[in-house]
């Protein structure tokens, strides 16, 4: 009786608390604050483009709990493949996390060992980077093990090569591009039979004065002791719908994201492009980008394992949104390991420490910016203009909007307004272009006046000024100063002083 009484009291209090707290919970702020970098590289407030939706860790479901998820792949039908590395299996889920199938046999040749990467071709064939087995395992769409692509053998790989496939894609020709941990020469291009074709898209060692000087002045023995500078390691890759391969690089300050052309040349970055946070204040640390996903409009989203933030750039490399962060609350993460997105733009981020997958949804503001940005990227500035004006109504800190409206004005040949907007966006190059056109316009409109001005100026300089100067000279001369002093002029100057 007493028990029931306390219980009912307790439930009452809980209900009361909930009633009081619920509105707070509904309007609760996101654990991370929206911000963006302006063209002065200062971090300014912005509206979040992505907010935390929910998480899935597999507890209490048919699939069972996740253990160190290392990769996510979303296919064309929005089905989600998760490389559940700790459980040695690949999960196939629908977009509401209902289990469809499990890849990876309990025993036999189809048994996986720490699979860190997964890729699925259009016909549903599943390629698994079976990291600890040093192979790529291939499964049929129905879940049955088909075959393996063994470790590639080639003299080009070098004696110290250790094969540790962690991520992979398969291009339309059927070639595999494999990230092997610890390999600094780039991606391994492997044929379906497991023959090594070539390295692809490797990073280069950048020029360094210190290294050059060391090489000049060091003796043979010293040179042998200097650790050879290796190119940076590729951490992950992604193939977009057009077949471009995007890579992320671990370490380094610039160009950690690359879009590789079919011959392996970076087509995304011009010069040194900074990705991730600028360190305006606080301790300096370099980001560690571990995964990248690209949507059909070319929006590039990368995740940084140091800050556990995701950074989204449009096709031209403009930063659009930053979301996530390090922490325990929902919406923050501990060790981001993989990211991919469904066709509606929902982001799936795997957290390999918390053993779960977090989902982030776009906000209305995010969608607005995405629409505007897509038009802008295609060069349809006039159509994008109204959308960018709406972006500015929500958020006047969004420098890209000013720039985009400026471009629209420029295209509409309203150069004076374009100049104003470029000034607001602090883009001096474009401002100067608009100014040049504006100047042309002014010249054309006021041509007569400019002509008259030039003629008047010419007459002044040619006929009016010389007599004036002569008169002035004469007056100075008459007051006693020399007009043309020569050597031994001290006395004359003295005269001038007196005069």
């Amino acid at each position, binding site marked *: 009786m007493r028990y029931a009484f306390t219980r009912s009291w307790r439930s009452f209090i809980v209900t009361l608390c909930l009633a009081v707290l619920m509105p707070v919970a509904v309007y609760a702020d996101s654990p991370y604050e929206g911000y963006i970098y302006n063209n*002065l590289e200062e971090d300014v407030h912005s509206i979040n483009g992505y907010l935390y939706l929910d998480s899935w860790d597999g507890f209490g479901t048919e699939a069972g709990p996740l253990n160190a998820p290392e990769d996510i792949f979303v296919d064309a039908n929005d089905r989600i493949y998760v490389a559940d590395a700790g459980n040695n299996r690949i999960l196939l889920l629908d977009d509401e996390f209902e289990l469809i199938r499990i890849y990876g046999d309990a025993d036999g040749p189809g048994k996986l060992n720490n699979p860190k990467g997964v890729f699925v071709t259009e016909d549903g064939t599943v390629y698994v980077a079976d990291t600890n087995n040093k192979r790529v395992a291939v499964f049929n769409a129905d879940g049955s093990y088909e075959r393996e692509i063994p470790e590639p053998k080639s003299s080009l790989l070098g004696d110290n090569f250790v094969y540790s496939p962690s991520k992979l894609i398969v291009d339309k020709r059927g070639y595999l591009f494999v990230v092997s941990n610890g390999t600094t020469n780039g991606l391994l291009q492997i044929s379906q039979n497991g023959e090594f074709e070539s390295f692809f898209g490797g990073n280069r060692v950048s020029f360094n004065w210190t290294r050059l000087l060391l090489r000049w002045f060091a003796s043979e023995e010293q040179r042998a002791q200097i650790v050879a500078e290796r190119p940076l390691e590729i951490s992950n890759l992604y193939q977009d719908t057009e077949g471009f391969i995007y890579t992320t690089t671990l370490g380094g300050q610039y160009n950690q994201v690359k879009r590789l052309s079919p011959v392996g040349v970076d087509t995304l970055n011009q010069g040194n492009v900074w990705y991730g946070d600028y360190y305006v204040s606080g301790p300096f640390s370099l980001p560690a980008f571990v995964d990248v996903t690209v949507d059909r409009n070319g929006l590039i989203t990368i995740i940084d394992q140091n800050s556990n933030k995701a950074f989204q750039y449009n096709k031209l490399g403009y930063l659009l949104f930053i979301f996530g962060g390090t922490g325990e609350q929902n919406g923050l993460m501990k060790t981001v390991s993989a990211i991919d997105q469904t066709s509606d733009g929902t982001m799936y981020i795997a957290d390999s420490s918390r053993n779960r997958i977090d989902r982030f949804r776009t906000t209305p503001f995010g969608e607005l910016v995405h629409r505007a940005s897509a038009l802008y990227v295609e060069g349809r500035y006039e159509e994008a203009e109204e959308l960018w004006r709406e972006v500015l109504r929500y958020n006047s800190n969004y420098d890209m909007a000013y720039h985009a409206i400026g471009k629209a004005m420029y295209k509409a040949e309203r150069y004076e307004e374009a100049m104003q907007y470029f000034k607001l966006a602090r883009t001096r*190059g474009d401002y*100067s272009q608009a100014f*040049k056109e504006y*100047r042309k316009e002014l010249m054309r409109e006021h041509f007569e006046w400019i002509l008259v001005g030039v003629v008047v100026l010419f007459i002044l300089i040619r006929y009016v000024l010389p007599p004036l100067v002569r008169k002035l000279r004469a007056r100075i001369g008459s007051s006693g100063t020399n007009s043309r*002093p020569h050597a031994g*002029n*001290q006395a004359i100057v003295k005269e001038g*002083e007196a005069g």
Partner: protein
Amino acid sequence: MNTLRMMGKVLRHPNEFYYDLQAPGVARWSHAILLIILAFIARMISILVTGYAFETREPYEISFLFEFVWIVVPWISWSISNWAVSTILDGEGKFKEIVVGSAYALVPYIVFVVPVTLLTNVLSLDEASTYRLFMSIIQFWVILLFLIKVRVLHDFEIGKMIWITILTLIGMFIMWFVCFILYGLIDEFVNFIINLFKEISFRT
């Protein structure tokens, strides 16, 4: 009026100007101060009238004090260093002449920087080379006047002039270095005294 005439002369006949400057009573402290203030004003006006596309700094990054310091400190340290070096190495120039002569060497800058900067309002960034050409002509002119000043005031030949100029520059850097160290030490010392007094006042 006299200063104006001398400014015109340093532009047209720099050699003769510096000969004349050695006559007693020609070099005046007031001229030097006036010219430096003019140089500062010219600098500030040129910053103000720079076209938007050519601005490399945001307005809040520009400080009156720093612009002033960047004119005054090189001028004074050059004068002191040049005087010291040339006195040791048989130069004839007097300190006052060097100070005033250095100030007059800035005349091309004072006269031409504002009109040249006004060009940035009609040029676009593609045509920046025109602006840069004029600016480097001004700089070259100023440097030339400094060299002529060293040669004429101290009555050196060309080789020695270059040698003295290099020594003067080295001397300037040594001066700056010493001042920097002195500043650090004095700052430490003053802090020490202040802390000592604070400590004593807390204890009593």
